Protein backbone atom coordinates (compact mmCIF):
# COMPACT_ATOMS: atom_id res chain seq x y z
CA UNK A 1 0.00 0.00 0.00
CA UNK A 2 1.26 3.42 -0.91
CA UNK A 3 2.53 5.48 2.01
CA UNK A 4 0.99 8.87 2.67
CA UNK A 5 4.27 10.46 1.63
CA UNK A 6 4.25 8.84 -1.82
CA UNK A 7 0.56 9.51 -2.28
CA UNK A 8 0.69 13.13 -1.15
CA UNK A 9 3.78 14.02 -3.16
CA UNK A 10 2.19 12.58 -6.28
CA UNK A 11 -1.04 14.43 -5.65
CA UNK A 12 0.85 17.70 -5.22
CA UNK A 13 2.60 17.20 -8.54
CA UNK A 14 -0.65 16.39 -10.30
CA UNK A 15 -2.74 19.12 -8.63
CA UNK A 16 -0.20 21.85 -9.33
CA UNK A 17 0.59 20.70 -12.84
CA UNK A 18 4.32 20.36 -12.02
CA UNK A 19 5.10 18.14 -14.96
CA UNK A 20 8.88 18.27 -14.75
CA UNK A 21 9.02 17.37 -11.06
CA UNK A 22 9.33 13.85 -9.61
CA UNK A 23 8.27 12.97 -6.03
CA UNK A 24 11.95 12.65 -5.09
CA UNK A 25 12.43 16.33 -6.07
CA UNK A 26 10.10 17.44 -3.28
CA UNK A 27 12.52 17.62 -0.36
CA UNK A 28 10.97 17.18 3.07
CA UNK A 29 12.47 20.20 4.80
CA UNK A 30 12.95 22.71 2.00
CA UNK A 31 10.45 25.57 1.67
CA UNK A 32 7.53 24.88 -0.67
CA UNK A 33 6.87 28.55 -1.45
CA UNK A 34 9.15 31.30 -2.64
CA UNK A 35 12.43 29.39 -2.76
CA UNK A 36 12.83 25.59 -2.58
CA UNK A 37 10.08 24.22 -4.82
CA UNK A 38 9.23 27.82 -5.81
CA UNK A 39 5.45 27.74 -5.58
CA UNK A 40 3.42 30.95 -5.54
CA UNK A 41 0.08 32.11 -4.17
CA UNK A 42 -1.85 30.70 -7.15
CA UNK A 43 -0.31 27.31 -6.40
CA UNK A 44 -1.38 27.74 -2.77
CA UNK A 45 -4.98 27.99 -3.96
CA UNK A 46 -4.65 24.86 -6.07
CA UNK A 47 -3.10 23.04 -3.12
CA UNK A 48 -6.04 24.04 -0.92
CA UNK A 49 -8.48 22.78 -3.59
CA UNK A 50 -6.67 19.44 -3.71
CA UNK A 51 -6.68 19.03 0.09
CA UNK A 52 -10.38 19.71 0.14
CA UNK A 53 -11.15 17.32 -2.70
CA UNK A 54 -8.84 14.44 -1.82
CA UNK A 55 -8.54 14.64 1.96
CA UNK A 56 -11.73 16.38 3.00
CA UNK A 57 -9.80 19.21 4.68
CA UNK A 58 -11.64 22.52 4.54
CA UNK A 59 -9.38 25.55 4.83
CA UNK A 60 -11.17 28.81 5.49
CA UNK A 61 -8.24 31.00 6.40
CA UNK A 62 -5.37 31.19 3.89
CA UNK A 63 -3.11 32.92 6.42
CA UNK A 64 -3.34 29.96 8.81
CA UNK A 65 -2.76 27.61 5.89
CA UNK A 66 0.50 29.42 5.11
CA UNK A 67 2.10 28.02 8.26
CA UNK A 68 1.04 24.49 7.41
CA UNK A 69 2.51 24.93 3.94
CA UNK A 70 5.96 26.07 5.09
CA UNK A 71 7.63 22.83 4.04
CA UNK A 72 6.59 19.38 2.80
CA UNK A 73 7.03 17.98 6.30
CA UNK A 74 4.71 20.53 7.91
CA UNK A 75 2.20 19.93 5.12
CA UNK A 76 2.22 16.16 5.64
CA UNK A 77 1.80 16.61 9.41
CA UNK A 78 -1.12 18.94 8.72
CA UNK A 79 -2.77 16.39 6.45
CA UNK A 80 -2.23 13.55 8.96
CA UNK A 81 -3.90 15.57 11.69
CA UNK A 82 -6.82 16.97 9.73
CA UNK A 83 -7.81 14.44 7.10
CA UNK A 84 -11.31 12.94 7.13
Amino acid sequence: MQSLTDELKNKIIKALNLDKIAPADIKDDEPLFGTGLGLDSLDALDLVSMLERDYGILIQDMEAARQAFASYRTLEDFVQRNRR
Partner: protein
Amino acid sequence: MDPTMTAPRVAIAASGEVTALGLGQERLEQAVLANASGLRDCPRLAGKGYQSTVGGYVPDQVWGSLRERDPAHADAPAFLLADAALREARANLGRSAPNVAPGSPNTRSESCESTLLDAVPASRRGLVLSTTKADITALEGALDHRPNSVTAQRHLFPALLAADLGAAHGIAGPVQCVSTACVSGLLAIQQGALLIQEDKADLVFVVGVDLFSDFVLSGFTMLRSLDPGGCRPFDAERKGLSLGEGAGAIVLARRETLASPALTVKGWGSSNDANHLTGPSRDGSGLALAMNRALQKAGVTPLAIDFVHTHGTGTSYNDAMEGMALRSVFKAQVPPYCSSKGLFGHTLGAAGLLETIVCLLAARHQLLPGTPGLRSPDPSVPDSLLQKPRPAESLRRLLKLNAGFGGVNAALVLEWGSG
Protein backbone atom coordinates in the same frame (compact mmCIF):
# COMPACT_ATOMS: atom_id res chain seq x y z
CA MET B 1 3.84 69.34 -25.49
CA ASP B 2 0.79 67.11 -25.33
CA PRO B 3 -1.05 67.77 -28.60
CA THR B 4 -4.33 66.75 -26.99
CA MET B 5 -4.18 69.94 -24.92
CA THR B 6 -5.37 71.79 -28.02
CA ALA B 7 -7.34 68.94 -29.52
CA PRO B 8 -11.16 68.99 -29.55
CA ARG B 9 -12.85 68.00 -26.31
CA VAL B 10 -14.75 64.73 -26.42
CA ALA B 11 -17.97 64.06 -24.53
CA ILE B 12 -20.60 61.36 -24.13
CA ALA B 13 -23.52 61.94 -26.48
CA ALA B 14 -25.62 58.97 -25.40
CA SER B 15 -25.43 55.63 -23.63
CA GLY B 16 -27.16 52.26 -23.71
CA GLU B 17 -27.01 49.23 -21.43
CA VAL B 18 -28.28 45.79 -20.59
CA THR B 19 -27.51 44.35 -17.16
CA ALA B 20 -28.93 42.25 -14.34
CA LEU B 21 -31.31 45.14 -13.80
CA GLY B 22 -32.79 44.74 -17.25
CA LEU B 23 -32.63 46.39 -20.62
CA GLY B 24 -32.37 50.14 -20.94
CA GLN B 25 -31.44 53.17 -18.99
CA GLU B 26 -34.57 53.63 -16.89
CA ARG B 27 -34.03 50.34 -15.09
CA LEU B 28 -30.42 51.20 -14.33
CA GLU B 29 -31.37 54.73 -13.31
CA GLN B 30 -34.08 53.50 -10.93
CA ALA B 31 -31.67 51.05 -9.32
CA VAL B 32 -29.03 53.72 -8.81
CA LEU B 33 -31.55 56.12 -7.25
CA ALA B 34 -32.95 53.37 -5.01
CA ASN B 35 -29.52 51.88 -4.20
CA ALA B 36 -30.98 48.54 -5.23
CA SER B 37 -29.10 45.35 -6.00
CA GLY B 38 -29.61 43.28 -9.13
CA LEU B 39 -27.70 40.30 -7.72
CA ARG B 40 -29.56 37.04 -7.30
CA ASP B 41 -28.95 33.35 -6.94
CA CYS B 42 -29.11 31.09 -9.96
CA PRO B 43 -30.57 27.68 -9.06
CA ARG B 44 -29.55 26.25 -12.43
CA LEU B 45 -25.90 26.45 -11.34
CA ALA B 46 -26.38 24.78 -7.96
CA GLY B 47 -24.64 21.49 -7.22
CA LYS B 48 -21.75 22.11 -9.59
CA GLY B 49 -19.31 22.99 -6.82
CA TYR B 50 -18.99 26.71 -7.53
CA GLN B 51 -17.97 28.86 -4.61
CA SER B 52 -20.96 31.11 -5.23
CA THR B 53 -23.88 31.16 -7.64
CA VAL B 54 -24.99 34.65 -6.65
CA GLY B 55 -24.37 37.08 -9.47
CA GLY B 56 -25.68 39.74 -11.80
CA TYR B 57 -27.59 37.68 -14.37
CA VAL B 58 -29.37 39.33 -17.26
CA PRO B 59 -33.01 38.31 -16.63
CA ASP B 60 -34.40 35.38 -18.65
CA GLN B 61 -37.19 37.48 -20.10
CA VAL B 62 -34.63 39.96 -21.43
CA TRP B 63 -32.69 37.12 -23.08
CA GLY B 64 -35.96 35.84 -24.50
CA SER B 65 -36.92 39.18 -26.02
CA LEU B 66 -33.42 39.74 -27.45
CA ARG B 67 -33.48 36.31 -29.11
CA GLU B 68 -36.95 36.90 -30.46
CA ARG B 69 -35.92 40.23 -31.93
CA ASP B 70 -32.83 38.76 -33.61
CA PRO B 71 -33.24 35.02 -34.24
CA ALA B 72 -30.12 34.92 -36.44
CA HIS B 73 -28.05 35.68 -33.34
CA ALA B 74 -30.14 33.68 -30.88
CA ASP B 75 -27.16 31.41 -30.32
CA ALA B 76 -24.57 34.22 -30.09
CA PRO B 77 -25.07 35.71 -26.62
CA ALA B 78 -22.10 38.10 -26.58
CA PHE B 79 -23.32 39.66 -29.82
CA LEU B 80 -26.90 39.88 -28.53
CA LEU B 81 -25.90 41.82 -25.42
CA ALA B 82 -23.43 44.15 -27.12
CA ASP B 83 -25.85 44.76 -29.97
CA ALA B 84 -28.65 45.50 -27.52
CA ALA B 85 -26.54 48.11 -25.71
CA LEU B 86 -25.55 49.69 -29.04
CA ARG B 87 -29.18 49.84 -30.17
CA GLU B 88 -30.17 51.48 -26.89
CA ALA B 89 -27.37 54.02 -27.30
CA ARG B 90 -28.41 54.83 -30.86
CA ALA B 91 -32.01 55.23 -29.81
CA ASN B 92 -30.90 57.52 -26.96
CA LEU B 93 -28.89 59.69 -29.35
CA GLY B 94 -32.17 61.42 -30.13
CA ARG B 95 -32.28 62.62 -26.52
CA SER B 96 -29.16 64.70 -26.67
CA ALA B 97 -31.34 67.51 -28.03
CA PRO B 98 -31.64 70.36 -25.50
CA ASN B 99 -35.34 70.21 -24.75
CA VAL B 100 -35.67 66.51 -24.03
CA ALA B 101 -35.78 65.63 -20.33
CA PRO B 102 -33.76 62.66 -19.09
CA GLY B 103 -35.87 59.61 -18.34
CA SER B 104 -38.34 60.22 -21.17
CA PRO B 105 -40.06 57.06 -22.36
CA ASN B 106 -37.89 55.19 -24.78
CA THR B 107 -39.71 54.83 -28.08
CA ARG B 108 -37.32 52.02 -29.11
CA SER B 109 -37.52 53.19 -32.63
CA GLU B 110 -34.65 53.50 -35.08
CA SER B 111 -36.24 56.70 -36.35
CA CYS B 112 -35.47 58.25 -32.96
CA GLU B 113 -31.83 58.56 -33.99
CA SER B 114 -30.80 62.12 -34.06
CA THR B 115 -29.44 64.26 -36.80
CA LEU B 116 -26.12 63.77 -34.99
CA LEU B 117 -25.84 60.27 -36.42
CA ASP B 118 -27.31 61.25 -39.78
CA ALA B 119 -24.73 63.97 -40.19
CA VAL B 120 -21.84 61.56 -39.83
CA PRO B 121 -21.03 59.35 -42.84
CA ALA B 122 -20.28 55.68 -42.14
CA SER B 123 -16.57 56.15 -42.87
CA ARG B 124 -16.34 58.69 -40.04
CA ARG B 125 -18.00 56.43 -37.48
CA GLY B 126 -15.80 54.24 -35.33
CA LEU B 127 -16.28 51.40 -32.88
CA VAL B 128 -14.15 50.20 -30.00
CA LEU B 129 -15.05 46.90 -28.33
CA SER B 130 -13.99 46.07 -24.79
CA THR B 131 -14.23 42.44 -23.67
CA THR B 132 -12.24 39.94 -21.65
CA LYS B 133 -13.68 36.67 -22.92
CA ALA B 134 -16.18 37.54 -25.71
CA ASP B 135 -18.28 34.46 -26.43
CA ILE B 136 -16.42 32.05 -24.18
CA THR B 137 -19.55 29.91 -23.85
CA ALA B 138 -18.82 28.69 -27.38
CA LEU B 139 -15.50 27.18 -26.32
CA GLU B 140 -16.69 23.92 -24.83
CA GLY B 141 -18.98 23.29 -27.79
CA ALA B 142 -16.10 23.97 -30.17
CA LEU B 143 -13.90 21.40 -28.46
CA ASP B 144 -16.60 18.75 -28.25
CA HIS B 145 -17.73 19.35 -31.82
CA ARG B 146 -21.17 19.99 -30.45
CA PRO B 147 -23.26 22.27 -32.62
CA ASN B 148 -22.41 25.91 -32.02
CA SER B 149 -23.74 28.39 -34.49
CA VAL B 150 -21.07 29.55 -36.89
CA THR B 151 -21.56 33.04 -35.48
CA ALA B 152 -21.07 31.94 -31.87
CA GLN B 153 -17.87 30.13 -32.75
CA ARG B 154 -16.63 33.18 -34.66
CA HIS B 155 -17.24 35.25 -31.57
CA LEU B 156 -14.84 33.15 -29.56
CA PHE B 157 -12.41 35.57 -31.15
CA PRO B 158 -13.03 39.07 -29.80
CA ALA B 159 -11.73 40.80 -32.93
CA LEU B 160 -14.33 39.02 -35.07
CA LEU B 161 -17.07 40.04 -32.63
CA ALA B 162 -15.86 43.64 -33.00
CA ALA B 163 -15.91 43.39 -36.79
CA ASP B 164 -19.44 41.94 -36.79
CA LEU B 165 -20.76 44.61 -34.42
CA GLY B 166 -19.23 47.29 -36.61
CA ALA B 167 -20.85 45.83 -39.69
CA ALA B 168 -24.23 45.54 -37.96
CA HIS B 169 -24.18 49.20 -36.95
CA GLY B 170 -23.12 50.79 -40.19
CA ILE B 171 -19.59 51.57 -39.07
CA ALA B 172 -17.05 51.92 -41.86
CA GLY B 173 -14.46 53.88 -39.92
CA PRO B 174 -11.88 52.51 -37.46
CA VAL B 175 -12.83 49.39 -35.50
CA GLN B 176 -10.68 48.36 -32.53
CA CYS B 177 -10.77 45.62 -29.94
CA VAL B 178 -9.31 46.13 -26.49
CA SER B 179 -8.80 43.17 -24.18
CA THR B 180 -6.81 44.24 -21.16
CA ALA B 181 -8.55 42.43 -18.32
CA CYS B 182 -10.91 44.48 -16.17
CA VAL B 183 -9.52 47.86 -17.29
CA SER B 184 -10.53 47.18 -20.88
CA GLY B 185 -13.57 49.44 -20.62
CA LEU B 186 -11.70 52.55 -19.50
CA LEU B 187 -8.92 51.92 -22.02
CA ALA B 188 -11.54 51.52 -24.76
CA ILE B 189 -13.07 54.88 -23.82
CA GLN B 190 -9.59 56.37 -24.01
CA GLN B 191 -9.11 54.89 -27.48
CA GLY B 192 -12.48 56.22 -28.60
CA ALA B 193 -11.63 59.72 -27.42
CA LEU B 194 -8.29 59.57 -29.22
CA LEU B 195 -9.94 58.57 -32.50
CA ILE B 196 -11.93 61.80 -32.36
CA GLN B 197 -9.06 63.97 -31.13
CA GLU B 198 -6.78 62.64 -33.88
CA ASP B 199 -9.52 63.31 -36.44
CA LYS B 200 -9.91 59.69 -37.47
CA ALA B 201 -13.62 59.65 -36.62
CA ASP B 202 -16.39 62.07 -35.69
CA LEU B 203 -18.59 59.66 -33.76
CA VAL B 204 -17.30 56.62 -31.88
CA PHE B 205 -19.32 53.84 -30.31
CA VAL B 206 -17.51 52.33 -27.36
CA VAL B 207 -19.11 49.09 -26.19
CA GLY B 208 -18.09 46.66 -23.46
CA VAL B 209 -19.51 43.18 -23.02
CA ASP B 210 -18.90 40.01 -21.06
CA LEU B 211 -21.03 36.96 -20.30
CA PHE B 212 -21.72 34.94 -17.20
CA SER B 213 -20.10 31.61 -18.00
CA ASP B 214 -19.13 28.34 -16.37
CA PHE B 215 -15.60 29.08 -17.57
CA VAL B 216 -15.26 32.31 -15.62
CA LEU B 217 -17.29 31.10 -12.65
CA SER B 218 -15.11 28.05 -12.27
CA GLY B 219 -11.96 30.16 -12.65
CA PHE B 220 -12.95 32.53 -9.87
CA THR B 221 -13.95 29.52 -7.77
CA MET B 222 -10.38 28.24 -8.17
CA LEU B 223 -9.15 31.63 -6.99
CA ARG B 224 -11.56 31.49 -4.04
CA SER B 225 -12.50 35.07 -4.58
CA LEU B 226 -16.30 34.87 -4.70
CA ASP B 227 -18.61 35.90 -1.87
CA PRO B 228 -21.30 33.20 -1.47
CA GLY B 229 -23.72 35.81 -0.14
CA GLY B 230 -23.14 38.46 -2.79
CA CYS B 231 -20.39 41.08 -2.81
CA ARG B 232 -20.11 43.70 -0.09
CA PRO B 233 -17.68 46.33 -1.32
CA PHE B 234 -15.63 48.02 1.41
CA ASP B 235 -17.54 46.11 4.07
CA ALA B 236 -15.81 45.00 7.27
CA GLU B 237 -17.09 41.46 6.62
CA ARG B 238 -16.48 41.35 2.88
CA LYS B 239 -15.56 37.97 1.48
CA GLY B 240 -15.21 38.38 -2.24
CA LEU B 241 -16.69 39.49 -5.50
CA SER B 242 -19.85 38.66 -7.44
CA LEU B 243 -19.64 38.19 -11.17
CA GLY B 244 -22.07 39.86 -13.54
CA GLU B 245 -22.89 39.86 -17.21
CA GLY B 246 -24.00 42.70 -19.39
CA ALA B 247 -23.09 45.27 -21.97
CA GLY B 248 -22.67 49.01 -21.80
CA ALA B 249 -22.27 51.33 -24.77
CA ILE B 250 -21.51 55.03 -24.99
CA VAL B 251 -21.35 57.27 -28.01
CA LEU B 252 -18.49 59.75 -28.05
CA ALA B 253 -18.58 62.94 -30.06
CA ARG B 254 -16.93 66.36 -30.08
CA ARG B 255 -18.24 68.36 -27.16
CA GLU B 256 -19.22 71.31 -29.30
CA THR B 257 -21.73 69.22 -31.25
CA LEU B 258 -23.69 68.36 -28.11
CA ALA B 259 -26.29 70.21 -26.11
CA SER B 260 -25.44 71.25 -22.57
CA PRO B 261 -24.80 69.86 -20.12
CA ALA B 262 -22.63 66.88 -21.04
CA LEU B 263 -19.99 64.62 -19.51
CA THR B 264 -16.59 65.33 -21.05
CA VAL B 265 -13.60 62.99 -21.05
CA LYS B 266 -11.04 65.26 -19.42
CA GLY B 267 -8.12 62.98 -18.74
CA TRP B 268 -6.90 59.42 -18.44
CA GLY B 269 -4.07 57.37 -17.09
CA SER B 270 -3.03 53.74 -16.75
CA SER B 271 -0.23 51.80 -15.10
CA ASN B 272 1.05 48.40 -14.09
CA ASP B 273 1.77 47.29 -10.52
CA ALA B 274 4.65 45.10 -11.74
CA ASN B 275 3.95 42.87 -8.76
CA HIS B 276 1.78 39.75 -9.27
CA LEU B 277 -0.65 38.37 -11.84
CA THR B 278 -3.76 38.22 -9.70
CA GLY B 279 -3.01 40.19 -6.56
CA PRO B 280 -2.77 43.97 -6.60
CA SER B 281 0.34 45.49 -5.05
CA ARG B 282 -0.45 45.84 -1.36
CA ASP B 283 0.27 49.53 -1.09
CA GLY B 284 -2.03 50.63 -3.91
CA SER B 285 0.84 52.49 -5.51
CA GLY B 286 0.09 51.16 -9.01
CA LEU B 287 -3.49 52.43 -8.92
CA ALA B 288 -2.30 55.70 -7.37
CA LEU B 289 0.08 56.13 -10.31
CA ALA B 290 -2.80 55.71 -12.78
CA MET B 291 -4.91 58.20 -10.80
CA ASN B 292 -2.16 60.81 -10.68
CA ARG B 293 -1.53 60.42 -14.40
CA ALA B 294 -5.22 60.98 -15.14
CA LEU B 295 -5.36 64.06 -12.91
CA GLN B 296 -2.25 65.47 -14.51
CA LYS B 297 -3.60 64.90 -18.00
CA ALA B 298 -6.88 66.55 -17.02
CA GLY B 299 -4.90 69.49 -15.69
CA VAL B 300 -6.56 69.31 -12.26
CA THR B 301 -5.36 68.77 -8.71
CA PRO B 302 -6.90 66.15 -6.40
CA LEU B 303 -8.90 68.90 -4.68
CA ALA B 304 -10.88 69.43 -7.87
CA ILE B 305 -12.42 65.94 -7.73
CA ASP B 306 -15.93 65.84 -6.28
CA PHE B 307 -16.51 62.10 -6.36
CA VAL B 308 -14.67 58.84 -7.04
CA HIS B 309 -16.33 55.78 -8.55
CA THR B 310 -14.07 52.94 -7.46
CA HIS B 311 -13.42 49.47 -8.79
CA GLY B 312 -14.60 48.17 -5.39
CA THR B 313 -15.05 44.46 -6.12
CA GLY B 314 -15.55 43.39 -2.53
CA THR B 315 -12.47 41.20 -2.24
CA SER B 316 -10.39 41.69 0.85
CA TYR B 317 -7.29 42.70 -1.11
CA ASN B 318 -8.80 44.94 -3.75
CA ASP B 319 -10.80 47.16 -1.44
CA ALA B 320 -7.94 47.52 1.06
CA MET B 321 -5.58 48.41 -1.78
CA GLU B 322 -8.02 50.92 -3.22
CA GLY B 323 -8.43 52.55 0.18
CA MET B 324 -4.68 53.02 0.32
CA ALA B 325 -4.53 54.36 -3.21
CA LEU B 326 -7.24 56.91 -2.38
CA ARG B 327 -5.33 58.07 0.69
CA SER B 328 -2.09 58.23 -1.24
CA VAL B 329 -3.57 60.55 -3.86
CA PHE B 330 -6.08 62.54 -1.80
CA LYS B 331 -4.29 62.47 1.56
CA ALA B 332 -6.75 63.60 4.25
CA GLN B 333 -9.33 64.84 1.75
CA VAL B 334 -10.66 61.71 0.09
CA PRO B 335 -13.82 62.70 -1.81
CA PRO B 336 -17.05 60.75 -1.39
CA TYR B 337 -16.65 57.39 -3.17
CA CYS B 338 -18.80 54.39 -3.99
CA SER B 339 -18.80 51.04 -5.77
CA SER B 340 -21.49 49.72 -8.13
CA LYS B 341 -20.37 46.10 -8.12
CA GLY B 342 -23.30 45.28 -5.85
CA LEU B 343 -25.69 46.78 -8.38
CA PHE B 344 -24.97 44.52 -11.36
CA GLY B 345 -21.91 42.48 -10.35
CA HIS B 346 -18.37 42.59 -11.68
CA THR B 347 -19.02 42.75 -15.40
CA LEU B 348 -15.34 42.44 -16.39
CA GLY B 349 -14.98 43.89 -19.90
CA ALA B 350 -18.26 45.78 -19.57
CA ALA B 351 -17.38 47.23 -16.14
CA GLY B 352 -15.57 50.34 -17.36
CA LEU B 353 -18.50 51.23 -19.63
CA LEU B 354 -21.37 50.41 -17.25
CA GLU B 355 -19.69 52.14 -14.33
CA THR B 356 -18.97 55.21 -16.43
CA ILE B 357 -22.68 55.22 -17.31
CA VAL B 358 -23.43 55.19 -13.56
CA CYS B 359 -21.20 58.29 -13.33
CA LEU B 360 -23.22 59.86 -16.15
CA LEU B 361 -26.49 59.17 -14.31
CA ALA B 362 -25.01 60.53 -11.08
CA ALA B 363 -23.93 63.75 -12.79
CA ARG B 364 -27.25 64.20 -14.55
CA HIS B 365 -29.15 63.85 -11.28
CA GLN B 366 -26.47 65.65 -9.23
CA LEU B 367 -26.61 62.65 -6.93
CA LEU B 368 -23.80 60.78 -5.17
CA PRO B 369 -24.59 57.05 -5.65
CA GLY B 370 -24.45 54.61 -2.78
CA THR B 371 -22.78 51.22 -2.53
CA PRO B 372 -25.36 48.41 -2.76
CA GLY B 373 -24.30 45.39 -0.74
CA LEU B 374 -22.43 47.44 1.85
CA ARG B 375 -23.74 46.89 5.38
CA SER B 376 -21.00 47.85 7.85
CA PRO B 377 -18.16 49.92 6.44
CA ASP B 378 -14.64 48.65 7.07
CA PRO B 379 -13.17 51.11 9.61
CA SER B 380 -9.79 51.00 7.89
CA VAL B 381 -10.98 52.45 4.58
CA PRO B 382 -11.41 56.25 4.16
CA ASP B 383 -14.63 57.33 5.86
CA SER B 384 -16.06 59.32 2.94
CA LEU B 385 -17.48 56.00 1.71
CA LEU B 386 -21.01 56.42 0.37
CA GLN B 387 -23.32 53.82 1.78
CA LYS B 388 -26.59 55.32 0.56
CA PRO B 389 -27.16 57.81 -2.26
CA ARG B 390 -27.42 61.47 -1.36
CA PRO B 391 -27.78 64.73 -3.29
CA ALA B 392 -24.46 66.32 -4.27
CA GLU B 393 -23.75 69.97 -3.59
CA SER B 394 -21.89 70.19 -6.84
CA LEU B 395 -20.96 67.13 -8.85
CA ARG B 396 -18.69 68.48 -11.55
CA ARG B 397 -15.52 66.40 -11.66
CA LEU B 398 -15.69 62.64 -11.31
CA LEU B 399 -12.86 60.13 -11.18
CA LYS B 400 -13.54 56.59 -12.40
CA LEU B 401 -11.17 53.75 -11.44
CA ASN B 402 -10.69 50.14 -12.45
CA ALA B 403 -7.98 47.55 -11.80
CA GLY B 404 -7.41 44.10 -13.29
CA PHE B 405 -5.43 40.89 -13.50
CA GLY B 406 -1.90 41.29 -14.70
CA GLY B 407 -1.48 44.27 -12.39
CA VAL B 408 -3.23 46.71 -14.73
CA ASN B 409 -4.83 49.91 -13.44
CA ALA B 410 -6.74 52.68 -15.19
CA ALA B 411 -8.36 55.97 -14.26
CA LEU B 412 -10.59 58.41 -16.12
CA VAL B 413 -11.38 62.03 -15.20
CA LEU B 414 -14.84 63.11 -16.33
CA GLU B 415 -16.25 66.61 -16.18
CA TRP B 416 -19.93 67.52 -16.14
CA GLY B 417 -21.16 70.86 -17.26
CA SER B 418 -22.11 73.32 -19.87
CA GLY B 419 -18.58 74.46 -20.59
